[in-house]
């Protein structure tokens, strides 16, 4: 008797990859277990999943958002404790941090992938204009100025309509260089630093300068608009994350390169956001716990890591097992792990638990700063006020 495991996910972009590569590979190895990948749109995933879990109709396997969203599910008893899963041994503590309880004692999702932030650029354009990959802030803005002056390319493709672009690809992309990655993030968590500190306001100050380099009407530009502008070759630089790689490879007919967020001064240590983004766990109420565990163990294996990483260049496996990547752009991104210090997005762990929600506020503040509607200082102050209103270590 076959059991069928249903997988809940927001990764509807990955539907074909699951159907064509991952599922056949698993099913070939584990006869008797069938997989059914049922993604929903990212924006609705949380609402849909919560409803289904509350009602008991959710699938056996659940793709986990990092940190609080999943923690809440675990605490509500929806995600099974899988601390003892053998495959768990393949992951580092940092990798696991996205899906363990605050005291790290219990693990409820297998880390699956992380994404690295950075900037993708149009190599042809850079060559045409004679620009080098910028290493420092100054070079970065010099490059932008040059592109702007030339006028044949929009310097940077980003819009503020969807809001999260500004926060995720802007603030959290360049921010770690200022708050020194994990050091600053943990200090903020502990209440030792405040969002009004220079380390946290400085990235806003950078963002405030970006507005001038974005395309006309960027205020109404959506994320897909940005993607299209860049892949149609109309923009030179695209602040982004590694997850775009697989999509862009098919769309862009020019060569792409990538650079990590420029540091303040030459020689500074660079910090990158290597964000634990996707985990995968087990519905506590699944009728097929054994099959589910079998599957999760397989997700922890290096075999899965290889399939996944190459099927989706840009989603980097978190397992400690070494993985050979074929895509040059993906190789570029992952190579930064050696050069720079890694951290995760500052707002994801713990800080977005209360009301007002720091993540939402950060979106909002990043947009406001880019548009020049709020000064970086005011933004910092507003966020700090919001955070301290409910987060005890900051009070």
């Amino acid at each position: 008797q076959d059991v069928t495991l249903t997988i809940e996910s927001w990764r509807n972009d990955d539907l074909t990859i699951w159907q064509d590569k991952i599922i056949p590979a698993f099913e070939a190895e584990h006869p008797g277990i069938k997989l059914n990948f049922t993604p929903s749109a990212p924006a609705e995933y949380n609402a849909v999943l919560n409803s289904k879990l509350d009602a008991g109709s959710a699938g056996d396997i659940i793709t986990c958002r990092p940190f609080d969203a999943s923690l809440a599910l675990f605490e509500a008893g929806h995600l099974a404790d899988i601390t003892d899963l053998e495959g768990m041994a393949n992951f580092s503590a940092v990798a696991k941090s996205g899906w363990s309880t605050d005291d790290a004692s219990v693990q409820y999702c297998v880390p699956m992938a992380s994404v690295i932030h950075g900037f993708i650029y149009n190599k042809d354009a850079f060559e045409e204009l004679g620009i080098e990959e910028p290493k420092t802030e100054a070079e970065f803005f010099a490059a932008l100025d040059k592109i702007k002056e030339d006028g044949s390319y929009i310097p940077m493709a980003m819009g503020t309509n969807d809001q999260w672009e500004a926060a995720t690809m802007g603030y959290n992309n360049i921010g770690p260089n200022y708050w020194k990655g994990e050091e600053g993030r943990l200090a903020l968590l502990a209440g030792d630093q405040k969002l009004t500190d220079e380390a946290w306001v400085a990235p806003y100050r950078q963002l405030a300068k970006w507005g001038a380099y974005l395309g006309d009407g960027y205020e109404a530009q959506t994320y897909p608009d940005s993607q299209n502008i860049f892949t149609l070759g109309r923009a030179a630089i695209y602040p982004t994350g590694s997850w775009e790689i697989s999509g862009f490879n098919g769309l862009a007919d020019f060569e792409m390169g990538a650079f990590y967020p420029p540091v303040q001064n030459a020689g500074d240590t660079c910090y990158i956001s290597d964000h634990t983004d996707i985990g995968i766990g087990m519905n506590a109420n699944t009728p097929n716990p054994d099959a589910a565990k079998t599957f999760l163990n397989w997700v922890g294996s290096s075999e899965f890591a290889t399939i996944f990483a190459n099927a989706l260049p840009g989603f980097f496996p978190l397992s400690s097992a070494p993985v050979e990547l074929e895509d040059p752009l993906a190789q570029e991104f992952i190579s930064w792990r050696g050069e720079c210090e890694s951290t995760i997005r500052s707002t994801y762990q713990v800080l977005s638990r209360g009301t007002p929600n720091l993540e939402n506020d950060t979106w909002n503040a990043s947009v406001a700063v880019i548009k020049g509607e709020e000064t970086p200082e005011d933004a910092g102050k507003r966020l700090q006020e919001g955070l301290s209103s409910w987060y005890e270590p900051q009070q």
Partner: protein
Amino acid sequence: MSDPHSKPKIRWHIIVFLAPAVLVYTAVMIYPLFNTLRLSLFSEVEQTRVFVGLQNFRTLFGDAVWSAQFWNALANNFWFFLIHMLVQNPIGIALAAILSHPKLRFASFYRSAIFIPTILSFVIVGFAWKLILSPIWGIAPGMLDAVGLKSLYAPWLGKEAYALTTLSLVSVWQFVGIPMMLIYAALLSIPDEILEAAEVEGITGFSAFWKIKLPLILPSIGIISILTFVANFNAFDLIYAAQGALAGPDFSTDILGTFMYRTFFGFQLQLGDPHMGSTIASVMFAIILIGVCLYLFGIQSRMRRYQF
């Protein structure tokens, strides 16, 4: 009305006629709704649900963060409603007035075409208008350019000052067919003889509209207004489809529906809070109920329905 049997007998057929609708409606709509609204009196503390009375309402109105969002959404919602009242309904009435002209040719074609946006889904409408208004794709700026008004163009959906108005107008575009149809029906029900009597007295064209037709369709306009009110204060989909659950930019398009949705189901890193969510839902329900009652007892009862 007619009871062929004797008084004390139970009229089973009434029960049979009502039962399916009442059962389905109660089980699948009313029970879940009230079950949900009930949540507004509870809160979750340490993974358990505890009764907190009106505490959630106090939070909603008392807590600065919550109340600011609430009043913002409410104010936006009123603006949304106002635009519908000021733009959608007059346009609907005007179109209906033109269409109801007895000798107009192609009337049925116009009628069907104008109703088409109403049958489209929010996903399509939101997406299509985002594309058209997008500065990137350039249809709207291009068209304005063609008539020499390029300077009027702005990335409306991205500007706080315009976004809500723009979306309201998109919504107007989508739904203008409904008031048009209802008014059209009302206009057709005005007897020809009354209009001819007016014509003999020299009341034609615009004065016929102002002096005869409009007063006679006032009750229909009243009903349309209240339907618009209910629909607008329940609205959610279009804003969500066009601007996402955060109703950007900077919550400038946030209306009660999106606020409730975001709170109830959570969003991105924000966790869903069914208790606060149903608190907002309860308030929405109250607002709509008050509006409907005001209409029913304040306006409807004073308005005459004319029997022709």
